[in-house]
């Protein structure tokens, strides 16, 4: 059972261009449990956890390819996703309703109700 944070979607558009993001602020998303063979910017401690999209940042080159001198294109939507401490650390959370925001690329996210 996920413990979700409250989100107030920002009252402005993403400052960086996006060709269209699959998720919108407030959507409930889960970080995929995959792994990339090499450099990745999805922190291990958030894999498998569910949070809410806080904002869409814009489209950015894929760091998993940039790290190996590829161009990382097409750029992919990047989100700020908010998680509760209760969701990430369970009963060991220091305070359940405190939150962690992290930037997660779209290809690491799936709808929370995905099987």
């Amino acid at each position, binding site marked *: 059972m996920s413990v979700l944070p409250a989100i107030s979607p*920002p009252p*402005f558009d993403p*400052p*960086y261009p996006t060709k269209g993001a699959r998720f919108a602020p407030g959507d409930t998303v889960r970080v995929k449990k995959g792994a990339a063979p090499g450099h990745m*910017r*999805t*922190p291990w*401690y958030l894999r498998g956890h569910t949070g809410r999209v806080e904002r869409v*940042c814009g489209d*950015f080159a894929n*760091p998993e390819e940039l790290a190996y001198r590829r161009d990382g294109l097409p750029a992919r939507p*990047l989100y*700020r996703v*908010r998680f509760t401490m209760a969701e*990430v*650390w369970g009963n060991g959370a*220091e*305070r359940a*309703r*405190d*939150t*962690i*925001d*992290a*930037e*997660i*690329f779209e290809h690491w996210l799936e709808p929370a109700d995905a099987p």
Partner: protein
Amino acid sequence: MPHDHHDHDHDHFHHEGTSPSGHPYRPDNDQPLTYWQRIEIEVRVLLVEKGITTAAGINAQIARMDARTPAQGARVVARAWDDPEFKARLLADGSKAMAEMGIEPDGLKLVVVENTPEAHNVVVCTLCSCYPRNLLGLPPDWYKTRAYRSRMVREPRAVLGEFGLDLPDDVQVRVHDSTADMRYLVLPRRPAGTEGWDRERLEALVSRDCMIGVAVPEAG
């Protein structure tokens, strides 16, 4: 026993390997250059030889990096406290707003997170040491330690307490992990008792730590 190394009673005695004030001397770096140090030198010499850049150009760039200090961030914060329209622009697009003040963001993509009576923000980079250098200069050493990076997402209140910041239970702590392309600046709350202060006086209240979120500004 003036020559007893374990005797602390003598004011004029210095332990071996420590300065007169008792700090250890940093060892001389007599070891050979590492592989990456050699590569850096070779590439730099080649770039200059081939006319792609100049030694003066490299020095100027280093000077430009060294000139960035938290005072730039303090200017941005003080203006946001003093100018609600600027604050709205800063929250919507931090890089554009700092450029408006003549602070060049270069590649910095700045997200500004605002402290409120209900929520306190703090910044960490668990994966490495991402930091808004173009705005605040180099990060403090502790920001790059494994202890700060791992503990700030796990027990932020305990870490903030060690910095001397004890937050009330009804204030939510929001930790921001700089995992990808954005960099973060905390916009602290303007302290009570600063009504009517000019910007310069406000700027003096805004420390680097306030803008990372491990401290809050206080008036006098």
